[in-house]
């Protein structure tokens, strides 16, 4: 496979876009609300499977299934948040991982979700669209690559989400969130309903996870539960720490760097089996997390001054 293989890099671009959307939700929780949400993969699974089952079992069109899946994920976010958001930060983290694992086990073992075999066949509508889009793109010479429409769809969605979140952050709502992250007791003493804001933050993050799950499903064309394990969430955190905890743009940059790093490994001609390359990728991500958390907690692109003020 050549370094210049467009199909490969488009695939990487799709993956990076999916991680970016996923991590935007994490950033809202971690960087802007102070919630250590370790269960984001669980919300993603719920969104992806809701979409898959609506399309395959209930015959819904793809474009209707997406908002429905988002809604299901938001409800899940609210259900998880209601009892758990009053816990202290580290216990909240553990509870969200437990939630994420319960979702995974449920998807693996419940009959209606196809178990370990996964869910197939929801991408019929998408493939039609892809074929149409490829046709449209041929005149300008881009019709050859299969994944290009998906890449465009993912990144268009990503940019819309990015814009929306940035506007939200600059609004009075975003300001309250910042205050809560700084000092929630002081925020409450000024009349802010901290719990309600945290719940909204978690709900929005769940929605973003569902959107990421939607595109992930279209990318891999079938859903299986082990895709949605905590490692996905941890990769999301790696994207977060690479881009810094202070901006949404940084998240996108972080996701790109992360994917370039992990996928780019293929081009180093290392005498490793494919399983070993896979392991190496995880080892590198782990090292990134350790080294940055220890020596540059504000992230590659974050500012040290703001980090110090935050703590």
């Amino acid at each position, binding site marked *: 496979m050549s370094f210049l293989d467009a199909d490969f890099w488009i695939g990487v671009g799709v993956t990076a876009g999916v991680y970016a959307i996923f991590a935007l939700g994490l950033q809202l929780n971690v960087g802007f609300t102070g919630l250590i949400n370790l269960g984001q993969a669980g919300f993603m699974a719920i969104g992806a499977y809701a979409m898959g089952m609506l399309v395959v079992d209930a015959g819904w069109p793809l474009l209707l299934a997406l908002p429905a899946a988002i809604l299901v994920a938001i409800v899940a976010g609210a259900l998880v948040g209601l009892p758990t958001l009053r816990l202290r930060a*580290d216990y909240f983290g*553990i509870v969200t991982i437990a939630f994420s694992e319960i979702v995974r086990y449920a998807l693996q073992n419940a009959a209606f979700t196809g178990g370990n075999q996964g869910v197939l066949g929801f991408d019929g509508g998408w493939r039609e669209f892809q074929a149409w889009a490829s046709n449209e793109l041929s005149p300008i010479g881009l019709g050859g690559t299969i994944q290009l429409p998906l890449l465009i769809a993912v990144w268009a969605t990503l940019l819309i989400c990015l814009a929306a979140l940035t506007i939200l952050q600059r609004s009075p709502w975003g300001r309250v969130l910042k205050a809560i992250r700084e000092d929630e007791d002081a925020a409450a003493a000024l009349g802010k309903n901290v719990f309600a804001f945290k719940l909204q933050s978690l709900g929005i993050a769940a929605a973003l996870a569902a959107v990421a799950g939607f595109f992930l499903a279209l990318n891999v064309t079938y859903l299986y539960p082990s895709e949605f394990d905590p490692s996905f969430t941890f990769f999301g955190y790696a994207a977060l720490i690479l881009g810094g905890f202070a901006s949404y743009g940084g998240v996108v940059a972080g996701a790109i760097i992360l994917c370039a790093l992990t996928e780019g490994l293929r081009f180093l001609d290392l005498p490793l089996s494919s399983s070993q390359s896979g392991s190496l990728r995880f080892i590198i991500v782990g090292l990134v997390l350790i080294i940055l*958390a220890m020596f540059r907690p504000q992230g590659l692109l974050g500012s040290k001054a703001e980090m110090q003020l935050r703590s």
Partner: protein
Amino acid sequence: MERRFPFLTANARVAVRLTLVLILVAIVLAVARGPVAVGQTTLNGLVAAGYFSLGAVGLTLVFGSLRIINFAHGDLLTLGAYVTLGISAIGLPFWPAAALAIAATAGIALVLDRIVWEPMRRKRASTLQLFLVAIGLAMVIRYTIQFFAGSQPRSVGQDVLSAIVVGPFHLGALQGLALIVGVAAATLVGLGLAFTPFGKKIRALADDVALAEVSGVDTRRMIRLVWLVAGGLAALAGVLYAAAVGSVNPNFGFLILLSLFTAAVLGGIGNAYGALAGGLIVGLAQEWSTLFFNARWKPVVGFAILIVMLLVMPRGIFGSGRARS
């Protein structure tokens, strides 16, 4: 007695009540599902309790004395098991290999403290930073193991087919061994915590670091010992798991980490006795659940208990000593 063993008395009372509750539950289950089934699952539960308890003790001691939720702890179990297999593959019999692996893992835990955790303490790292470091460390350990040993499950290689049969109850030979070693180890740990000066100091440290320091405990030295104990017990737990289940894969430690948290929280985070009891509860609960649900749902039982405990009784059954901020 009250003054010389203040911890023991309070905990002992709860322990007695707990034992009675467990016996009661067992009786109710026996009526519902038959004594043989209950007996068999209880036996299986005790086997599991062995590695849950020992794994949870290390987790709870580290949290109690250092306030670190060590997400990498599960992977120390994996490390112990794999190093054992590695050493026994080059000729040493299983249990001596295990002993070496335990020592090695304890040492590695100590080294990790020196190069990772201690610098974080000095920098007064935030909760988020500690989480990220632990997660990163877990990944590095787990995938380094996978890098060298492959991701496929590996059989423990011992005689996994022979079974001990006593009446209507059966237990694999290796499982039986794991049960005996597990119970013995847990008992030794419990006694050691209760009666040795080292045990008392470690309990004091895990309960209240500031108070321990003021009482003249050399905290720096004790922290090093905490890591050695945590790492060693984790490795032993990993070996017991390998023996009980008959095979290992690089993910098993991380997968049972949440159950270890459950055990630690049940017992009251920071309470080492509590962790032992918590492991017993989790082991029994998971195995007893198979009387009603498919065995695939076993881990979910642990997760559910964890969530309920954190929401309803975060200080655990035994309580975590003094009120924490």
